[in-house]
């Protein structure tokens, strides 16, 4: 005769991913690396934004990119053409990157000590928000062609991000897009989110983006020093 037993578990469903993400984070901190996980819907301009950013940042520090797409290595090739190492992950039927994929891809990149690793997640505003990759922080990119209320329609990703980059501002004269309203909606979901408005095509706003990245570097360094004390 079998006996039914009740077993208490109390474990986070994403425990396994979170454990691997914690290992990634420890590795990134040991390598003195800033890691940004870029999230957006398909077509918001993440790759164009990255091509410009890495081309300009590579002059002053090591930069690498991990590209996530369901298929093709087109994006990694665009980054490599800008003179920066890039590894492509194809997720197949999966709609997001997970921490194990990032751990593997990172080992395939050259050492980037003291530099920046950008992770371009799969274009999807839902699932990637749930998966910690070990990044310093998440950045959500959204373009003005998507409408001001995107933060209210897909709140999880805006709640999980430290920075919202509003892209394609060069199209503002063609579209009736209210930047103030988009920021107000994003802050309803995440009162602490930073906002930078850019055009990946013209380069407008990129100086502010680089200044923001430098502030994150300073913040990480201070956190590291405080921990060492």
């Amino acid at each position, binding site marked *: 005769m079998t006996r039914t037993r009740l077993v208490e*578990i109390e474990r986070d469903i994403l425990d396994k991913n979170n454990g691997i993400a914690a290992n990634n984070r420890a590795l990134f901190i040991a390598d003195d690396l800033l890691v940004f996980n870029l999230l957006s819907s398909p077509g918001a301009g993440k790759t164009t934004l990255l091509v410009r950013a890495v081309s300009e940042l590579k002059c002053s520090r090591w930069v690498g990119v991990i590209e996530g797409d369901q298929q093709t290595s087109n994006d990694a090739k665009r980054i490599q053409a800008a003179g920066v190492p890039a590894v492509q992950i194809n997720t197949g039927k999966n709609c997001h990157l997970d921490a194990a994929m990032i751990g593997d891809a990172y080992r395939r990149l050259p050492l980037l000590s003291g530099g920046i690793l950008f992770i371009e997640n799969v274009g999807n505003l839902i699932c990637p*928000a749930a998966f910690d990759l070990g990044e310093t922080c998440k950045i959500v990119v959204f373009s003005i062609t998507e409408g001001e209320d995107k933060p209210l329609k897909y709140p999880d990703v805006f709640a999980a991000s430290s920075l919202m980059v509003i892209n394609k501002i060069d199209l503002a004269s063609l579209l009736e897009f209210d930047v103030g309203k988009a920021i107000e909606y994003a802050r309803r979901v995440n009162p602490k989110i930073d906002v930078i408005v850019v055009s990946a095509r013209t380069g407008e706003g990129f100086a502010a983006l680089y200044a923001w990245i430098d502030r994150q570097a300073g913040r990480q360094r201070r956190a590291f020093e405080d921990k060492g004390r």
Partner: protein
Amino acid sequence: MAICLGIIQIVEEKVHERSSSRVRSICLEMGALSHAAPEAIRFCFAAAATRTVAEGAALNIVELPGVAWCMSCSKSVEIARRGECCPCCGSYHLQVTAGEQMRVKELEID
């Protein structure tokens, strides 16, 4: 689906540890502000559980409310979803404090 596979993985580990062969029920705790909707989990679970130890197990989901600290009226309030205002003062200056969890709480095994 990845979340359902995560549930199955935790269940398989526990069942293996306890040398059990059958799972009667799985109890989950899902917060209102978590990344997955209970109905989506229920929908995917049967497919994810096929040909695993969890096949045929009952799935019980305890839904927990979203809770936030309102920085304007300095109190803890319940919210149903992100982007909602404080039900007391109408402010959007809210810091989520609970309701984000997705946990396997307990299992009933033979």
